[in-house]
């Protein structure tokens, strides 16, 4: 014996067999269209990444010719060390010139503060 003696009447299904097939068909079309659009977007996005990569390699080549591959080879950096009476990777210089890595992969919209 169940705890209740009354229940409510069922309502006709929202979709019949034909309706269900129509909805599934429309969903399939939507998925294919969206898939094609997203693939196109990703392809064009990859082109931007590849161009950027090529640009960075070109910059590296250029800087290697100028003997400027590391920050400690940079005259401007040396001038800063000289002006502030410091040395590379030393106390205050380390604090001022370096940052810490923090994963922010899930924080696209938040302007998180950088820890100096």
């Amino acid at each position, binding site marked *: 014996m169940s*705890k209740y*003696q*009354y*229940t*409510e*009447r*069922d*309502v006709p299904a929202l979709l019949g067999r034909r309706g269900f097939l129509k909805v599934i068909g429309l969903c399939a079309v939507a998925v294919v269209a969206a898939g094609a659009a997203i693939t196109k977007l990703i392809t064009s996005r990859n082109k931007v990444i590849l161009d950027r990569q090529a640009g960075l390699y070109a910059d590296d080549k250029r800087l290697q010719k100028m003997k400027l591959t590391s920050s400690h080879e940079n005259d401007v950096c040396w001038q800063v060390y000289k002006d502030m009476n410091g040395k590379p990777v030393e106390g205050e210089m380390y604090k001022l010139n370096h940052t810490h890595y923090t994963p922010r992969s899930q924080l696209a919209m938040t302007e*998180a503060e950088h820890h100096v």
Partner: protein
Amino acid sequence: MSNAEMQGARILRFHTSDKVFHSINAICWYALFFTGAIVYFGNMMGKISDETANLLMVWHIWLGGLFTLNFIGYVLFAPERFAVTMKNLLEWDKNTILWFRNFGGYPRRFFKIPFGPVEVPPQGRYNGGQKMSYLIFIAAVVYLIVTGWLLWMGAPLLGKTVFYWLFMTHVWGSFIVTAMVTCAHIPLALLSMEHFKGIWRIGSGDISYEAAEHHAPTWVQRDVIKVVEK
């Protein structure tokens, strides 16, 4: 259905699928609200470290996955219950509209505001206010699921403006609906403990005939039928 015959009877109002969907949806909703709000306001005020914010967002995303599966599961595995809910929510008859003349008599009852007529027109499974708010809640669930996934997985594909507005409507839309749930849905649900226990208790989601007759006389008269023992 004769009223005398139904005195003292129990009516099954919330099926297991309704209860499971409602419970997971409610728990996930508040967990998502707190994880999201802490990150949003914590970052805005600079009161939260990046590590904590990132961890909370990982939780937010996992909870969002569960929230999505819960809704899809309800629609796919209990379509007959989803159909009952939607049919009753979308059926706006004259008495549904007339409910808004006095907001179910609640302003008069709680705040002594003589708003509209004293009599409340008989309501179906849901009253006018429930129909309006539940439709908003369902739309909000769908909108938050869609925008949540777009913000997480579709971020590189969206333009900055689209991303910004999806984010703002995701955040503030959820805050507004959370305020509605906290300030109206929960207090008003507590007015009928029969319904409250029916949806939350572990076990059968039945309510008394008296509670059903008081809150939803049209539903009792039109949609409630005797269980046929097999």
